[in-house]
């Protein structure tokens, strides 16, 4: 093969490489941008902070949650008390995409009361996530604890909050 022949072969290979690189880059870009941004973890954290602010203000328990003897009220609607709206565009009301669980205990760890709002079916999915945290189709959950006081009775309460956000259709490529 003469010099010109060698150059032609090299340029053919060069353009073959360019095409392979272009196809590779396009595939990567399409794969990356076809996935929606997953903001559920941030959303679950914001929801948890909102619940915490609603339950305890300046370290004092919300008077709507407790009677004058320091007993946590039963069957309260957290969405009303905390001003939440769990309706999500694109989903039916029965398939709520949020979950909130609040557990009240004394400082010795004895459970006094618990309440929840949203889709209770998300609870086992939230609790089971310690082993399978990367599964995108599961709800993203957030967990937090705080201690608050009832001023009238000077009782302290330990509160555990779990929040979960599913919204898989808008945050995960299915």
């Amino acid at each position, binding site marked *: 093969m003469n010099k010109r022949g060698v150059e032609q072969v090299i340029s053919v290979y060069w*353009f073959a490489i360019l095409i392979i690189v272009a196809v590779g880059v*396009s595939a990567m870009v399409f794969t990356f941008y076809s996935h929606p941004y997953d903001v559920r973890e941030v*959303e679950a954290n914001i929801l948890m902070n909102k619940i915490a*602010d609603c339950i305890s203000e300046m370290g004092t328990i919300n008077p709507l949650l407790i009677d004058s003897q320091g007993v946590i009220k039963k069957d309260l609607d957290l969405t009303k008390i905390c001003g939440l709206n*769990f309706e999500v565009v694109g989903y039916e009301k029965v398939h709520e995409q949020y979950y909130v669980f609040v557990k009240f205990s004394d400082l010795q760890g004895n459970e006094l009361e618990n309440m929840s709002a949203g889709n209770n079916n998300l609870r086992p999915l939230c609790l089971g996530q310690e082993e399978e945290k990367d599964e995108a189709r599961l709800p993203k959950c957030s967990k937090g604890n705080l201690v608050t006081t009832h001023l009238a009775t000077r009782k302290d309460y330990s509160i555990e909050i779990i929040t979960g956000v599913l919204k898989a259709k*808008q945050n995960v490529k299915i």
Partner: protein
Amino acid sequence: MRIRNKKGDILVGNVIFIVLNIIYISILITFLYTKASGAVLLEEVSAKQIALLIDGAQPGMWFYLNMEEAYDAAEENGVDFSSIITKTGNTITVKLDDSGERAGYSYSFFNGVDVDIEDIPKSKEYKFVIEEKTP
């Protein structure tokens, strides 16, 4: 004469090769830029960003959101700045492209508040005022 022609051939070949490479790189960069700053992506990012900001806000607060990039994209696609962001119930919709009767991208917020949205075309910003929900 022969030698000079041969040298000329080599030069032309190299120039074509370099030009083709430059065209290739330009196409690749344009493709990446278009993909990364596309209206569809901007719609999703903006709608989610606004919904999260509203979720984290409390009644009495207000915030300004710079929508310069969205403004430029909307202008390119013939969408009026005042109609980029709309609110229906607790859903924020961002629309930057009117073609094909697209509805834009919608994302819901869980914070039960009223939101007043005001566009400020001069600074390409939107102002969001968070108010207590009126029954």
